[in-house]
C-alpha cells in the first residue's frame, strides 16, 4: 500500500485545498496520472499519482483544507488490504456536543461550501433558514434571530424585509435655463440631468487568488526593505539575433524577448549566488539551482511559472517549457512543479509599451527583475545623436540580503549577456 500525501508546492505552503478528485475511489491509476486538483496559495494545480494501483481510499473530501504532508489517499495493489496507520482528523473545528471522544471518521470535513449565504461562525442559523436565505439571496448578517441563543430560524427569514433603498432618484429638472433669454451669453450652461447613464457600482467578491496576492504583497512591502536599481540595456543585437533565429522556427516555436532575458538572468544569477537566495530568519540560503520564475498575468490575477535550471537549458527549451506552462495556467490547471521552487522572479511588461516599472519582491526570494519595453530612442554615440534600441529594467532587492553595489553589479553583468546575446545561444 502506498500513501499519497498533500504535496508541498512552495517554500511557505502550509496547507492546500483539495478542490476536486479526478480519480474516484475504486479507479485504477498509473504513475503520472492526475489524481486530484489542489488549490494552493498560488494556483490550482494537478497532483499526479506517484504510484500505480487502485485508489483504495480517499482520505479527504472535496473542499477540505489539508495540511502539507497529510495523507490524502491510499493506493493499493489488487487484492491488497488497507493497513490503517492512524486516523486523520482535519477540517474546520466543529462543535460536537459531548461527542468529542467518539470522533472517528477518517473523512475530512469539507470546508464551508461555496454559498452566497456563507456566514461567520458568530451567527447561529438553522439549516433550513440558511438554505432559505441562500435561495432568496438574503444576507444573514442582517437578519435578527429569534430562536434559542439568537439562532436564525425559518420565521426570521420569512419575516425579513430587504431594506435596500428605493432605486428612485428624483430627476433634476432639465432645461433649467430659460431658453428665451436674449442675452449675449448665448452659450448655455451645461445642465447635469442626473446619473441615468452612469454605471452603477459593481461589488465583486475577492477571490482566493486575489486574496493571496494581496496578503503576500502586503507582507512583502511591509516586511522586506526593498531597494531598486535601474539599468538601460542596448538590445539592438538581441532583437537582431531573435529575428534571425525566429526566421528558422515555426510560429509556435518562435522565441520571445523574454525567453532570452530568462536565459541571461539565469546565467547572471549563477555568478551572484547571494541574489539567487532567500532569507529565513537569521540564515540566508544561497540556492544551488537557478530556477527563474516568470510572472504570468491571468484573468483572475497573477501567478509565477518556474523555469527550472534555466542556466543549464538552451533558450529554445526554456521557451517551450514556459509556453506550455503558461497555456496550462491560462486554463486554470497548473501542475505543482510549474509553480514551485523559484529562486528569483522576472516580471515583464514589455508588451504593454512600458518605460520602466518596479516590482514587489515575491518572498522568500531576495530579488525580482522588472522589465520594460524595448524602444527605439535617440542615443549619443561618439558625440553624435543616433537611433538605438534600448530597454530599461529595474531590480528590486531585499536589503537584508544584499546591498546596492551588488545589485548594480548584477545589472551590469546582465548587460554583458543581453548586449552580447550570442552567449545565450550556447
Amino acid at each position, binding site marked *: 500500500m502506498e500513501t499519497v500525501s498533500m504535496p508541498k508546492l512552495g517554500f511557505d505552503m502550509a496547507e492546500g485545498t483539495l478542490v476536486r478528485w479526478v480519480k474516484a475511489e475504486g479507479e485504477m491509476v498509473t504513475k503520472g496520472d492526475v489524481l486530484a486538483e489542489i488549490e494552493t496559495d498560488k494556483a490550482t494545480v494537478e497532483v499526479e499519482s506517484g504510484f500505480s494501483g487502485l485508489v483504495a481510499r480517499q482520505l479527504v473530501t472535496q473542499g477540505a483544507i489539508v495540511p502539507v504532508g497529510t495523507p490524502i489517499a491510499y493506493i493499493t495493489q489488487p487484492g491488497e488490504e488497507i493497513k490503517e496507520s492512524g486516523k486523520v482528523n482535519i477540517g474546520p473545528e466543529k462543535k460536537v456536543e459531548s461527542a468529542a471522544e467518539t470522533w472517528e471518521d477518517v473523512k475530512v470535513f469539507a470546508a464551508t461550501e461555496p454559498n452566497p449565504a456563507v456566514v461567520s461562525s458568530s451567527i447561529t442559523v*438553522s*439549516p*433550513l433558514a440558511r438554505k432559505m436565505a441562500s435561495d432568496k439571496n438574503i444576507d444573514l448578517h442582517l437578519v435578527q434571530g429569534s*430562536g*434559542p441563543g439568537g*439562532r436564525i*430560524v*425559518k420565521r426570521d427569514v420569512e419575516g425579513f424585509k430587504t431594506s435596500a433603498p428605493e432605486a428612485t432618484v428624483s430627476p433634476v429638472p432639465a432645461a433649467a435655463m430659460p431658453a428665451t433669454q436674449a442675452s449675449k451669453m448665448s452659450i448655455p450652461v451645461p445642465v447635469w440631468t442626473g446619473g441615468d447613464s452612469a454605471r452603477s457600482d459593481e461589488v465583486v467578491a475577492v477571490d482566493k487568488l486575489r486574496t493571496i496576492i494581496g496578503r503576500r504583497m502586503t507582507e512583502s512591502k511591509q516586511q522586506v526593505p526593498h531597494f531598486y536599481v535601474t539599468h538601460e540595456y542596448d538590445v539592438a543585437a538581441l532583437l537582431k539575433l531573435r529575428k534571425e533565429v525566429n526566421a528558422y522556427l515555426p510560429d509556435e516555436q518562435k522565441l520571445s524577448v523574454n525567453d532570452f532575458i530568462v536565459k541571461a538572468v539565469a546565467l547572471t544569477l549563477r555568478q551572484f549566488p547571494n541574489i539567487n537566495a532567500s532569507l529565513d530568519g537569521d540564515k540566508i540560503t544561497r540556492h544551488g539551482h537557478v530556477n527563474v520564475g516568470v510572472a504570468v498575468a491571468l484573468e483572475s490575477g497573477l501567478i509565477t511559472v518556474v523555469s527550472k535550471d534555466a542556466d543549464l537549458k538552451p533558450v529554445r527549451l526554456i521557451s517551450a517549457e514556459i509556453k506550455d506552462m503558461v497555456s496550462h495556467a491560462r486554463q486554470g490547471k497548473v501542475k505543482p512543479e510549474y509553480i514551485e521552487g523559484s529562486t528569483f522572479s522576472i516580471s515583464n511588461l514589455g508588451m504593454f509599451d512600458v518605460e520602466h516599472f518596479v516590482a514587489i519582491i515575491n518572498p522568500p526570494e531576495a530579488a525580482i527583475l522588472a522589465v520594460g519595453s524595448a524602444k527605439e530612442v535617440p542615443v549619443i554615440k561618439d558625440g553624435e545623436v543616433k537611433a538605438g534600441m534600448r530597454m530599461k529594467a529595474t531590480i528590486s532587492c531585499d536589503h537584508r540580503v544584499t546591498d546596492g553595489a551588488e545589485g548594480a553589479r548584477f545589472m551590469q553583468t546582465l548587460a554583458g549577456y543581453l548586449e552580447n546575446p550570442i552567449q545565450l545561444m550556447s
Partner: protein
Amino acid sequence: MARITMREAISQALWEEMERDPNVFIMGEEVGVWGGTYAVTKGFYDHFGPDRVKDTPISEAAIIGAAIGSSIAGLRPVAELMTINFAFSAMDHIVNEAAKMHYMFNGQMVLPLVIRTVGGGGRQLGATHSQTPDAIFAHFPGLKVVAPGTPADAKGLLKAAIRSNDPILFIEHSTLYQTRGEVPEGDYIVPIGKSTVQRPGKDVTIVTYSKMLELSLKAADELAKEGIDVEIVDLRSLRPLDMGPVIESFKKTNRAVIVEEGWKSFGIGSEIMSRIYEEAFDYVDAPIKRVAQKEVPLPYNHTLEQMAIPNVSDIIKAVKEVL
C-alpha cells in the same frame, strides 16, 4: 366500526387467521388451558383443541426453536413469549436462525413465523421484566419488527404478520391491552413496513409508536389548547422502517420530537433523528429532540418507575423546546 380493546383486536386477529388457515397454530407458556397471561387466547384451547393451541415448557429457546422448525416444515406458528424480556433466552434462535436461515440457505426455505411478545414498563414488574429492548431486535436484517399502538393497527398488522412468509417479532404493550379504539368490520390487513400519520398538524412533528403514541396523542391535545398544532407519525413497524411519512411531515413542520419508551442511547430515536438529518438536513429549523426512558434499570418502586418512563408532560416540554 366496533370500538373494542387492544386485547380483543389481537384475539380476533388470531381467531380469524386460525379459522382461515389450518396451518396456523399457537404455542407458548400458558396459552392453552389458562388462556394466556394477558388472556388473549382465552377460549382458543376449547375451540381449536390441543393440537393447535399448544402449552409448552418454560423454555423460550425451545419455544422459538420448535417454532422455527415447524415453520420450515410448512406450518405457520404464532409463538408467544410471555414478555420480550424472556426473548433474551431465545436470542440465538431469533437473531441467528430465524433472521438468517432464508438468507444463508439461499432461499431454499421460508419461515412464516410470528413471535408474539409483550414489552414495556409501568406495571411494577421490576428491572428485568419491564424493558423496552425493541431497538435491539430492529437492529437485525432479516427479522421484521412490528409494534402497534392502536387496536385497529394491532389487528391488521397481526393478520398481515401471520400471512407473511418472513419471521416477524410482534411486540404488544403490557399497558395497552385495555385501550379501546375503532376497528374496521370484517377481514382486513395493515401492511407491515408502513408508517402513518395518526394526527395531522402543522407546527411540530412527533415521531413515535406503541404505548408512546397514546401519550403523544394526549400531549397533542394539551398543546392544542395553547394553539400548538402537533402532527403525530406512528411508525408501527420498526423494521422495515418507513421514513416516508416522517420526512414528509418534517419537511412541513421543520421541527421534530421523537418519543420512545426505551432508553435513549442507541435507540429508536437515535435512528429516526439520524435519518432526518441525512434525508432532510436543509429542512431542519431547530435541533431535533428525543424523549426516552431515563438511563437506569427500571425501578420497582412505583414513583421512581413513573419518573423513569416518559410521560405526557415530558413530551409537552420537549415540544415547547423545539418550537
